[in-house]
C-alpha cells in the first residue's frame, strides 16, 4: 500500500463520521461545525481528484462562507432548538426514509461501476482551443470563455438571490442596513485580527484572480476571500453594511454583470457571436471581466451572508 493509498483511506475514515454527524448531531450548532470540518477535508479529496480549482472553491465558499452563514442562523435559533428537536417524525417514517436513502446511495455506488469506458471527455477539445483564449488554466478558460454564458448567468443568479434576501426586510426598515450592528471589545482578539488580516486577505484574493490565468485559482475563489475580509471587519464592528438603498452599492453590484454583458454584446457586434472574444484581445477582455466580477461577487457574497435588512439606514 503506497502512502497515497493510505492517505485516501485515512481521509475517508475521517470524513464519513463528520458527514454522519452533520445529520445526526442533536444541536444544530454542532451539526454546522461538523459540516464546516467536513467541507475542509472535502477540499483535500478534490486535490486528490486532480481538481485544485474546485478544492479552493469548496474550501472557501462551500465550507467557509456557508459555515459563517449557517452558524449565524443557528445562533439565532438556539432558543427554540429543543422544542424543534422534539418534533421528530415517527419511527416508521424514519425507517422508510433510511431504506430509501440507503437504496439511493447504493444505486449511485453501483451506477459508478458501470460508467462508460473510455470515459467521454471534452479535455482534448479544450486543449486544442486553449491557445485562442490566451489563458493557460483550462478551468478558467471554460469558465470565462468556452462556457462564459454559464458564468454570466451564475452572476445573475447571485444577484437575484441577493434581491430575494433584501426583499425579506420588514416594512419599517425597507432600504435599511443589513444584519445586526456588531460590537466587539476594541482590545480583543477579534478586532486585532480584523485589523491584521484584511490587508493580507486582499492581496491573496487579488492574487488568486490574477494567477488563475495559468495556475489554480479563480475569480470566485478570490472574491470569496475578499468577502470574508469584509465580513471579518463587520463582525469586529469596524465597519458596517451599507444601506441597501445606496445608489453606489447598487451600481457596484451590477458593475460585474454589466461589464460582462457589454463585452458579450461587443462580441456580437465585432466578432462572430454573443460572448465571442477577438483572439488578439481575448486575454485582456477576460481579465477585465474578471476584475468586474471580483468586485461584484465579493460584495454579493458578503451581503448574502449579512442577511436581510434589519435596521433603518440612519442607524
Amino acid at each position, binding site marked *: 500500500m503506497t502512502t497515497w493509498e493510505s492517505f485516501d483511506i485515512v481521509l475517508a475514515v475521517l470524513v464519513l463520521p463528520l458527514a454522519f454527524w452533520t445529520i445526526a448531531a442533536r444541536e444544530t450548532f454542532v451539526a*454546522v461545525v461538523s459540516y464546516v470540518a467536513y467541507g475542509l477535508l472535502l477540499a483535500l479529496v478534490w486535490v486528490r481528484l486532480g481538481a*485544485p480549482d474546485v478544492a479552493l472553491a469548496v474550501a472557501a465558499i462551500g465550507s467557509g462562507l456557508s459555515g459563517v452563514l449557517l452558524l449565524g442562523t443557528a445562533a439565532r435559533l438556539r432558543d427554540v432548538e429543543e422544542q*424543534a428537536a422534539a418534533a421528530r417524525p415517527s419511527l416508521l*417514517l424514519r425507517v422508510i*426514509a433510511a431504506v430509501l436513502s440507503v437504496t439511493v446511495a447504493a444505486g*449511485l455506488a453501483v451506477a459508478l461501476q458501470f460508467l462508460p469506458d473510455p470515459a467521454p471527455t471534452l*479535455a482534448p477539445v479544450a486543449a486544442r482551443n486553449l491557445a485562442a483564449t490566451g489563458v493557460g488554466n483550462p478551468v478558467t478558460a*471554460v469558465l470565462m470563455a468556452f462556457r462564459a454564458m454559464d458564468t454570466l448567468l451564475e452572476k445573475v443568479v447571485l444577484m437575484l438571490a441577493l434581491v*430575494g434576501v433584501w426583499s425579506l426586510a420588514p416594512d419599517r426598515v425597507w432600504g435599511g442596513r443589513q444584519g445586526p450592528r456588531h460590537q466587539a471589545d476594541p482590545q480583543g482578539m477579534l478586532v486585532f485580527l480584523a485589523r491584521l488580516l484584511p490587508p493580507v486577505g486582499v492581496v491573496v484574493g487579488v492574487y488568486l484572480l490574477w494567477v488563475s490565468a495559468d495556475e489554480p485559482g479563480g475569480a470566485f475563489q478570490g472574491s470569496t476571500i475578499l468577502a470574508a475580509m469584509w465580513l471579518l471587519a463587520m463582525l469586529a464592528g469596524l465597519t458596517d453594511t451599507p444601506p441597501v438603498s445606496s445608489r453606489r452599492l447598487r451600481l457596484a453590484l451590477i458593475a460585474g454583470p454589466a461589464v460582462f454583458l457589454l463585452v458579450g454584446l461587443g462580441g456580437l457586434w465585432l466578432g462572430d457571436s454573443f460572448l465571442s472574444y477577438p483572439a488578439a484581445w481575448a486575454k485582456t477582455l477576460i481579465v477585465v471581466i474578471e476584475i468586474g466580477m471580483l468586485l461584484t461577487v465579493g460584495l454579493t457574497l458578503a451581503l448574502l451572508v449579512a442577511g436581510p435588512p434589519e435596521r433603518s439606514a440612519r442607524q
Partner: protein
Amino acid sequence: MNPLTVAGLWGAAAVGLGLYGMIVSPQPLRRILAFDLLGSGVFLLLGVVARRGAAAGFGGDPVGQALIITGVVVAFAATALTSALWLRLFQETGSATLPDAEGTGADAGAVDSR
C-alpha cells in the same frame, strides 16, 4: 482502492445521508444543511466523472470541473436565500418548525403548548 473509488463511494454515501436528513429533520435549518450535504455528494460524483475524463495532459475534464465550481457558488446562493427565508418566517410566526402540509400550523401550536 484508488482515489476515484473512495471519492465515488463517499459521494454516494453523502447523497444518502443528505437525503435522509432532508426527510426526517424537523428543523428547516437542518434540512438546509442536509441539502448542502446532498449537494456535496452530487459534486463529488460529478468530480469522479470529470476525473475519469482526464486527457490531453489535464488532471480531469475541465468542463466538468468548471461546472462544479459554478454549482458550488449557486448552492451557496440557495443556502443564503433559504436560511434568510426561514429566519424571516421564524420572526413572523415564532414557530421552530414549518407548518404541516395542511397549512394549519399545527406543529407550531403543538410545540408552544408543551
